[in-house]
């Protein structure tokens, strides 16, 4: 949009009804964009859904203003009624701040009958000041930043022109730029790759008001989030948007009797996306500039510089456009877990429970001590819990503490079900010994049932087995043999005292019939309806079912 837009301008000054009409357009725009603003929410959110809360707050503001008409048509009185309605109807943090913006706006209009560009700039400045005061610890990169930059741009514009539409244009442009910059100011936004939801709401409101002033269609449609929060890793790092340019420059000035307003205006004029906060003793600066050297030369006149950080956004932008960003290796400050597992599905379950590294291995492919040691040395933590997850691997694992400088605890898990039970008890930010103890204790609460196929004729533990039979073991003891998978499994589960169980986790093997898990699940649902059954595709060889009975 340009200030020389040829579209009709509704009026040079606004009275109360004109302001109300503009705010009605804003409410419609908020409602239309509600879901898209809601989608910008990233946790931790202080409360509720931003789009809904702002739209409901604006609606309450307008309802109150409409309900109490009949009085004066002065713009200041209309603003008062709107502000009162917003305060009554404020919902959520964003709604409360919006209500404070409207309150400050109304207060600054004093008892004006009509509003021109200069009055608007004054009102936006009042809105900004009241909004900042309402928040105990103002955070930049939020709707506060957006209203602040909008107000600053409006004030600058109003020094040149009293034209309402022109000042509005400038305020909107400032708000949009500030919004685009919010991910650079707030890590949580950058990680989720979204702009601030409340700031987006402010831009929607200003755009709608500006559209009303020009008699144009509302332009502002909220873009969907650029990426789901799940893509965080790929986007980590101090990067700016793909169209950022110049140098992202941050520094602090410490001095005495700094003329803050002058310094802020001067520094702000030398670049884009400026966030300059402080007072007469400390000034903190974030700005995108083409010439950081000249900026620092200016700044050092007012005091000592510290926390200087300059990033070349052109290079970052190129990197973003080029190859996929490389994943930095995760830094682990707590305790890591190295677990042995065969099968992609089991490995995925173990990782999801917090295992840091998986060593491939199991019944017929025991990993070497060196394999285990490499995995232990490979994790980024100095304190490591090792889960052998097989009786044949426990001893190898027990050698590790003498071979590594790292602090190692072996939790002697003899089966995959035991390994899962141990991992469930693991918390990454708990002490090593506390973790090892909790994980050992968890083994007592699980019985392991393993279902496989006999590879020879034998009589073991009093059970006669023929080659090719389905056999069931409970905690390494053979308890059942037969020719039907589900029947043998149910019989083995009875040996495992399934009647006392609350949760049965069934891990299906790579060679199990596709419907085996389902058939077992429905059989158990019939015989033991109170037990929660979970079926997981483990992908392990040899064992059709590995079952944890808890």
């Amino acid at each position: 949009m340009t200030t020389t837009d040829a579209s009709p301008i509704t009026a040079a000054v606004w009275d109360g009804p004109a302001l109300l009409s503009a705010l009605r357009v804003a409410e419609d725009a908020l409602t239309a964009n509600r879901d898209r603003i809601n989608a910008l929410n990233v946790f931790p959110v202080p409360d509720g859904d931003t789009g809904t809360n702002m739209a409901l707050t604006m609606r309450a503001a307008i309802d109150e203003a409409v309900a109490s008409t009949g009085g004066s048509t002065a713009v200041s009185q209309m603003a008062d009624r709107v502000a009162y309605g917003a305060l009554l109807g404020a919902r959520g943090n964003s709604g409360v701040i919006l209500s404070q913006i409207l309150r400050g706006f109304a207060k600054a209009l004093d008892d004006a009958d009509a509003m021109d560009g200069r009055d608007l700039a004054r009102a936006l400045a009042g809105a900004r000041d009241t909004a900042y005061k309402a928040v105990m610890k103002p955070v930049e990169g939020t709707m506060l930043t957006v209203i602040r930059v909008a107000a600053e741009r409006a004030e600058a514009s109003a020094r040149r022109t009293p034209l309402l539409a022109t000042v509005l244009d400038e305020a909107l442009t400032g708000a949009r730029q500030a919004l685009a910059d919010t991910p650079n100011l707030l890590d949580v936004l950058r990680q989720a790759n979204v702009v601030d939801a409340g700031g987006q709401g402010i831009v929607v409101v200003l755009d709608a008001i500006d559209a009303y002033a020009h008699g144009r269609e509302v332009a502002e449609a909220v873009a969907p989030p650029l990426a789901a929060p799940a893509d965080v890793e790929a986007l980590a790092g101090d990067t700016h948007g793909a169209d950022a340019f110049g140098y992202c420059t941050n520094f602090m000035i410490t001095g005495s009797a700094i003329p803050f307003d002058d310094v802020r205006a001067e520094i702000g004029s030398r670049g884009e996306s400026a966030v300059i906060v402080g007072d007469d003793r400390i000034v903190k600066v974030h700005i995108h500039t083409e010439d950081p050297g000249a900026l620092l030369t200016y700044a050092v006149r007012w005091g000592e510089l510290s926390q200087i950080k300059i990033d070349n956004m052109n290079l970052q932008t190129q990197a973003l456009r080029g190859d996929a960003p490389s994943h930095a290796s995760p830094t682990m400050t707590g305790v890591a877990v190295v677990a042995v597992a065969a099968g992609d599905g089991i490995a995925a379950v173990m990782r999801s429970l917090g295992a840091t590294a998986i060593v491939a291995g199991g019944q017929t492919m025991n990993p070497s001590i060196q394999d285990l040691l490499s995995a232990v040395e490979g994790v980024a933590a100095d304190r490591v819990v090792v889960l052998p997850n097989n009786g044949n691997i426990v001893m190898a694992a027990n050698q590790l503490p003498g071979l590594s400088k790292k602090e190692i605890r072996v939790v002697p898990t003899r089966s995959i079900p035991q390994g899962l039970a141990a991992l469930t008890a693991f918390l990454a930010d708990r002490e090593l010994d506390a973790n090892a103890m909790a994980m050992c204790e968890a083994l007592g609460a699980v019985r392991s049932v393993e279902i496989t196929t006999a590879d020879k004729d034998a009589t073991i533990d009093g059970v006669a087995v023929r080659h090719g039979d389905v056999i069931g073991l409970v905690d390494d003891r053979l308890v059942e043999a037969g020719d039907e998978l589900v029947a043998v499994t149910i019989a083995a589960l009875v040996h495992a005292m399934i009647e006392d169980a609350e949760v049965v986790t069934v891990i299906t093997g790579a060679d199990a019939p596709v419907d085996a898990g389902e058939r077992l699940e429905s059989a158990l649902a019939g015989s033991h309806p109170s037990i929660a059954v979970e079926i997981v595709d483990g992908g392990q060889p040899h064992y059709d079912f590995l079952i944890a009975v808890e």
Partner: protein
Amino acid sequence: MSKIAVVVDSTSDLPAAERERLGLTMVPLNVHFGDEVLRDNLDITPTQFLERLAMSRQLPTTSQPSPALFEDAFRALAKNHDAVVAITLSSKLSGTYQSANIAAEAVSDVIRVEVIDSQSASVSLALQALRAAELAARSDDLDAVVQQLRAEIASYHLLFFADTLEFLQRGGRIGKAASMVGTVLKIKPLLRVDEGQVVPYERVRTRSKAIDGLVDFVLSMPHVGHLGILHDGNIPDADLIRDRVAAKVPADRVLYSQYGPVLGAHVGPGALGVSVFEGNAL
């Protein structure tokens, strides 16, 4: 009539009878089903909420009370009180504390209001409100009452488990416990509210293990001056906990609290918890 009035938000879920007995004022948060806004515990009861939650395809959301709601409460109390102490759920979980503060400032020319961030929620907030009422009944020195309440905040310990992490995750209040999310297996997470935030405490697979965890937590405390038990209407489970800790906590020092719609929107059905106050009864 005490000269100091006590205001608490609805996430304390204090039973109405208990509130009336102690003259506590409750300010409700809101629960939203789409565009429909209902006041916590007033427009919808905990039981109605859980029924509706089971039927609703859309997950409810919540919002803090408007500053005006607190302001109304403070102004009403100004008629026959000298001061107000308002206790809210953790400012790290909700903007309720902020709303109360805005209102407190707005009424500063009418009545003095001190707002306390409980740094906790639910039945821990209820225990703090009861404590405030007891202190206010014995003293008309607002500063002394507030000072003691603030000093005791660290003596309240809330531990609970949700039947599923789904609601906490969608509600965004999960904080550091986010590390518990995303496991392939279903787990029962035991969670603590620590310094106002939800943090992981323990993961177990079954409800009975989770109840064991709550009981062990109470029994591990050197001293229990007051115990709160948080439940979703499942009295037998609450009784089970009370009975298993009876040697440590006499039954008359146990407060049952059925959690309401706003908490319910964040923990879902089937949650159970305990709040321990380590201090001594007055």
